[in-house]
């Protein structure tokens, strides 16, 4: 049975990854999960300098999901390299570093700083966080802006580049095509959907940031549809995510056209979700007589 998948010449032992921001750099979840069993660890977003993030409350539960407005709090790339990357050296898994910034220069500084780090297998560029005012999503909601930043990052990056797309757009196909045209090696989607919750007793927004990103099983049908549309619009690989809770969910994304999948908010519900999804995929392949995971990708529906 083959569960290996390949993206831009990098081979992953299986298609199950972690979604950025839901798994730290793996350290906290290594108490529960052998990181060596994952296809890849995708780290929390890292910027050129430390970011404080947003005021609290930063999270709120909603029906079938949650809203978050963390605001990309991170210790900056230097601490990340010394501590998080060093930690990840112990594990036989691929490392995808999520990069965030407020200006193009911020992103490029991180990309260049990481260019000689052997432990970084790929870069995922976050142009889709709905919770920071400057940068980030400003690059992810207009096709020409996405094209521009992708081209500039591709000029500097030594590792393959994944552009992480926002679902808060009119046409996900147009955005995926813009990333591909600018040279992106892959796209990942979806980031969270912008949402809001109001505490009716306190007459306040549930989040200090007022709006936040919706994730969890509630968004899965939207994510499957967008992965399907993106996968049919571009030739580069698509990494699918959005509410994956089980192997069945992951296989839906693969059948919609995803080469790999990522588990996000469900890590908070069950720290073992990633491994459970991976083992479930193997069981599904066995019971359905599937020899190669790649054979069910984007099957004719």
């Amino acid at each position, binding site marked *: 049975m083959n569960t290996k998948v390949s993206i831009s010449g990098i081979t992953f032992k299986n298609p199950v990854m972690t979604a950025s*921001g*839901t*798994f*730290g750099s793996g350290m*906290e*979840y290594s*108490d*529960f999960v052998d990181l060596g069993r994952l296809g890849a660890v995708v780290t*929390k977003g890292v910027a050129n300098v*430390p*970011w*404080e*993030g947003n005021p*609290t*409350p*930063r*999270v*709120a*539960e909603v*029906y*079938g*999901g*949650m809203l*978050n407005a*963390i605001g990309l*709090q991170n*210790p*900056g790339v230097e*601490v990340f390299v010394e501590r998080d990357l060093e930690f990840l050296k112990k594990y036989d898994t691929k490392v995808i570093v999520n990069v965030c910034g407020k200006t193009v220069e911020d992103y490029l500084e991180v990309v260049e700083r990481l260019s000689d780090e052997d432990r970084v297998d790929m870069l995922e560029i976050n142009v889709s966080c709905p919770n920071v005012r400057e940068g980030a999503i400003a690059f992810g909601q207009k096709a020409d802006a996405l094209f521009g930043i992708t081209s500039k990052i591709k000029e500097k990056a030594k590792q393959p580049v994944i552009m992480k797309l926002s679902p808060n757009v009119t046409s996900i196909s147009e955005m995926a095509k813009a990333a591909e045209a600018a040279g992106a090696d892959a796209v990942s989607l979806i980031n969270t959907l912008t949402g809001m919750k109001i505490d009716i007793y306190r007459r306040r927004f549930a989040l200090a940031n007022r709006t936040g990103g919706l994730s*969890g*099983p509630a968004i899965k049908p939207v994510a499957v549809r967008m992965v399907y549309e993106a996968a049919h619009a571009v030739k580069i690989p698509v990494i699918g995510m959005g509410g994956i809770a089980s192997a069945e969910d992951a296989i839906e994304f693969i059948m919609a056209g995803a080469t790999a999948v990522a588990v996000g*908010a*469900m*890590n*908070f*519900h*069950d*720290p*073992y979700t990633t491994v459970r999804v991976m083992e479930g995929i193997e069981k599904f392949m066995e019971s359905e007589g599937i020899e190669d995971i790649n054979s069910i990708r984007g099957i004719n529906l």
Partner: protein
Amino acid sequence: MSGKQKCASKVISQKMIADGIYDMWLEADFAGDVVPGQFIGVYTVNKAALLPRPISICEADRKGSAIRIVYRVVGTGTAEFALYGPGDYIMILGPLGNGFPLDEAEGKNVVVMGGGIGVPPLLETVKRLSEKKTPGPGEINAVMGYRSRDTFLSDEFSKYAGLYIASDDGSVGVKGNVIDALKESGKKPDLIFACGPMPMLKGIKSYAEENGIKAYLSLEERMACGVGACLGCVCRTKEADSHSHVKNARICTEGPVFDASILDL
């Protein structure tokens, strides 16, 4: 077994001890490792509610491998927990966070201060302080704040500590807050361990600073993962902590108990 884990835990007993306040004993292998002030994440069966509910550990029966939680029903999750009875299983994650530094109590007069649903974790705290042999702490007193006459757990505190009560409506003890009750008691603590709502903790922090008293505060915030990965539950600190490298420490991991002097509340 040590170290945090997610497991199905059997309910031993549950009863309502005050209006909307429930008292549950659960089997837990890790009971022997619990430090007072630590908490667990409790999961709902309702799949529409994803996140573990952070609930403080009220007591740990180290020999019987059981823990006790006392919680208020505030939403769909806790309303579901209130329906559980003996023999039911409930998914829990724990023990989480850092508890109160009991060793610092050595030779000191300690006052624990709790408000509302911040009262429960202080029960195990006074129990453990009172068990300490020489050289143990000096005098142990508890100042508890309630909304009204429903002074849940207060009789149990009186087994381990001198008890002083404040109530919002004055129906029992001193009318006012826990600081009013502390002043009224005439007790002069060297060390305060406190848990309760933010306005109360801010008041205690100021009181402790003005009077040169060392204080440890247990904070509460909306949490998601409970294990330090998501950075949802942070609190402002005066200096950047060694994990975040910004002035936002994780309540679930560096806390929930913090030295009051490092906080910027």
